[in-house]
């Protein structure tokens, strides 16, 4: 019996628009200057955002539920779009200096964004896998794109480890399918209840393999080791992208898989809490020892993975909301920090922490902005990072993971120390000559930074602006098909 494929274009619209941008960059790259492409792509991102707004509350789906444009997808998608737009804006100013000012840069970036959106909109494991691979493959290229030894090294490391990680993930998919006979999230969730004991075993195995695969993508210890090397080796604008958009997408995938499909599957949560604990300890402790600011941000990304993953341990209603809130804030503050590094660094190695001394007296605006971002990363109110952390703690705490939230609180103290040092150094008067890049017009970067800082501040004072959207428990109940 032949079925008409369940094809609806509307739910795909946000993805298609971005894809169009990618294709346009690929094709027009021969004719147009990169700057023009970037602006086209920015427009595409905005259009994609508009289409998402249009899809809000429609609950549309396509391909028999393989593609879900539900509210969760839209919220995560908007976060992704914001991060992507910030990357593009920064690249406007810095790509040339970073020697990545090719049309390919834009093209790969937009392909990656397509992949990330696909993850956010995924309704089954295969869609998710396709998105993940598109994102990863583009990411490998982006990391290597700069013609330099560190970039190539980071690219190869990323690629080899990433490929292994993907393999593990796919193997996990196979097992989950083997246990439930379904690849669809809702189908899996529906079937987890009445499984035979041996199938439960297979399911747990699959879930754990999936966890390992995702742990690689989001950089949970001990799968995190690529992160510092890749982030510090890649051009700063690429690091920005990898540490924000890619991580958001990976978490989106985790949210869909673990918060939705495997919500009631046994086993993975107890393993996850061990991974989180290790991540919190190692990520924060290792950050304390960094002398390079960019690399410190890389480690801080690992540490934040720990906090973000806490939300997965919460009930979907609390945890999903917390994660979505935290992801946006995380994107804003991390992107702004990297943007400042990109603007002020002399080489793609980034800046040494000691070089920040006295920055306030040379670039007051950037210094204050960076201080705000760091304070927010450290979780100090009135900046939004505090609410992110608070929500993460609350999600874990209320679901019974008290010891883990205590550990997270203590880890935050260590985190404060390494964020505080650069932040305060900037304000200490200094008479030695400046060690950062002084020249250049940077309106786009400044705009990005301003966007991040204003976002972080406003969302810190009025968290409801974003949390009000994400807090509806109905959104997160729908993840499991209910």
């Amino acid at each position, binding site marked *: 019996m032949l079925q008409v494929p369940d094809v609806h274009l509307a739910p795909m619209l946000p993805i298609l628009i971005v894809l169009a941008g990618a294709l346009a960059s690929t094709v027009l790259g021969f004719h147009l200057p990169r700057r023009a492409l970037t602006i086209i792509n920015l427009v595409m991102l905005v259009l994609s955002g508009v289409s998402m707004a249009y899809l809000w509350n429609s609950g549309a789906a396509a391909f028999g539920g393989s593609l879900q444009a539900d509210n969760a997808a839209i919220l995560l998608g908007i976060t992704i779009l914001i991060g992507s737009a910030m990357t593009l804006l920064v690249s406007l100013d810095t790509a040339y200096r970073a020697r990545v000012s090719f049309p390919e840069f834009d093209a790969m970036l937009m392909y990656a964004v397509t992949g990330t959106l696909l993850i956010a909109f995924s309704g089954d494991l295969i869609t998710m896998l396709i998105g993940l691979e598109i994102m990863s493959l583009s990411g490998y290229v982006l990391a290597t794109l700069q013609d330099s030894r560190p970039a190539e090294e980071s690219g190869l490391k990323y690629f080899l480890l990433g490929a292994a990680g993907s393999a593990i993930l796919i193997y996990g998919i196979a097992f989950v399918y083997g246990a439930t006979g379904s690849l669809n999230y809702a189908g899996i969730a529906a079937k987890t209840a009445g499984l035979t004991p041996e199938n439960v075993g297979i399911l747990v195995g699959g879930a754990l393999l999936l966890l390992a695969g995702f742990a690689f993508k989001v950089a949970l210890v001990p799968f995190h080791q690529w992160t510092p090397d890749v982030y510090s080796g890649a051009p700063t604008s690429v690091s920005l992208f990898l540490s924000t958009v890619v991580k958001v997408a990976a978490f989106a995938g985790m949210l869909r898989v673990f918060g939705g499909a495997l919500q009631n599957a046994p086993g993975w949560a107890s393993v996850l809490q061990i991974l989180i604990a290790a991540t919190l300890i190692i990520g924060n402790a290792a950050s304390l020892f960094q002398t390079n600011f960019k690399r410190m941000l890389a480690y801080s990304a690992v540490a934040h993975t720990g906090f973000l993953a806490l939300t997965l341990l919460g009930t979907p209603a609390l945890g999903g*909301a917390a994660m979505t809130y935290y992801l946006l804030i995380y994107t804003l503050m991390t992107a702004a920090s990297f943007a400042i590094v990109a603007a002020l660094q002399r080489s793609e190695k980034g800046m040494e922490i000691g070089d920040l001394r006295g920055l*306030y007296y040379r670039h007051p605006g950037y210094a204050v902005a960076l201080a705000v971002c760091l*304070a927010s990363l*450290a979780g*100090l*109110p*009135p900046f939004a990072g*505090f*609410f992110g952390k*608070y*929500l993460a*703690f*609350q999600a874990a*705490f*209320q679901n019974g993971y*008290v010891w883990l*939230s*205590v550990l997270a*609180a*203590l880890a*935050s*103290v260590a985190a*404060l*120390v390494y964020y*505080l*040092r650069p932040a*305060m*150094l900037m*304000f*200490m*008067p200094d008479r030695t000559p400046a060690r950062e890049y002084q020249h250049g017009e940077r309106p786009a970067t400044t705009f990005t930074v301003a966007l991040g800082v204003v976002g972080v501040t406003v969302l810190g004072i009025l*968290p*409801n602006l974003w*949390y*009000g959207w994400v*807090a509806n428990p109905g959104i997160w109940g729908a993840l499991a098909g209910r």
Partner: protein
Amino acid sequence: MIHLMIFLPLLGSLLLLATPKRWRDEVAGFVAALTLGLGLLIWRGGGAEVFRVDWIPALGVTYSVALDGVSLTLALVTAFMSFIAVLYAARRISNPGTMLSLVLAMETGLLGIFAARDLLLFYVFFETALLPALLMLAIYGKPNRMRALVKFAAYTLFGSLLMLLSIIGVKAYGGSPTFALADLIQNPVKGAAQTWLYLGFLAAMAVKLPLWPLHAWLPDFHEQNHDSGVPDVMGTLYKVGGYGLFQFGLPLFPDASEQLRPILMGLAAFTALYAAWIAFRQTDWKRLIAYAGLSHMGFVALGVFSLNETATIGAMYLLAFQNVYTGALFLAVGMLQERVGSVHTRVGGVMTQAGALGGMTLALWFASIAVPGLAGFVGEFSVLLGAYQVQPWLAFIAGLSTIAAAAYALTAFQTTFWQGRPLGAVRVADLRHTEWLVLGLPLAVAVFFGVYSAPALNLIQPAVRGVLAGLGGQ
């Protein structure tokens, strides 16, 4: 009006950034004075009742503020001392724009702490006030400030993050719909969980009191801060642990505070004596005053932990007014440093040439070591009296620190201001211009409230009675 009072300093702080340099002093002074004036108006109007709107409805976080009783007293003192700090900073520090701006920003944080009637809002203000304090230290501190800074921030955050968990727990276990204090009290946590949550809450307050052994940040913080003593004034005001315990700790954790009373009182009494004793050895004025302040905080804690009405009233009285004279002492040290270029306590003979500076410092010291007739006495005496009713021996131990206090205060004073001036040392100028006000106004306050305590007592007493009545009688 209450909102205006809380946020006016912050507005002023932002406004300063846009003000031409030559007008900054005046603008800052005007804003600080206006805030104080607003506070007085609120006081004349009988305080501000709880104002409540939802802030983050999805999380049950409300924006609830009130200024009454203890909080109004502390808010007024904060506004007053901020004004004094601005007054002195404007005179002492060249190009003081940043400092003034930070002082005002911090004032908002502090006023917010006192006004908040929502646990999460309290936390937000509690942490927000940290940032200007850190910046003051970073921008204006001395060479070893990074260490002091990290220590200060790490201790503070260590405590406050545990408090944050405890805040989450209080709402989760109690089942309250919001974080508003009134709702939380309606839905109390029962049993052993309450004790654990109290310990979490206590961690933050013990750091901020501070209480031994979580006090190590305090001496370094003051030692490394700017010589003028302006940041120290704000730092002193920031020691809000006693207030937090009183306003939130006691009502939310009544059983636990009852249960832990002897241990906590012991810790407090020990802190008082320990700090006073160590102060005796200090040769740096700032460290000395820091330890003296620590000793006072031991008294405050003793009063609050005792759950005795008289002692708690005394603790709040002491908490409020020690800000005045300890802060003024820091400024006096700033003046001393400006004149002799050192904050060492072995300068010698300053009073032979600067009589007024010496005299004012001495009078402030007397207030600090609780000589009757000055504000410190009312608080300290009530605390000891009340604590004695509960735990005589602990009151005795804390009482010993009054002897040690005389020893450290007078020794340092003597070796700095009395005795001979070294031959060939620079001539010391006496107080000038606004310096008279900077020391004189706090001293006047200290004298007034030492003699006539009724205005403050009328505010504090009903509030304390209300809280303690909530504990089911003492």
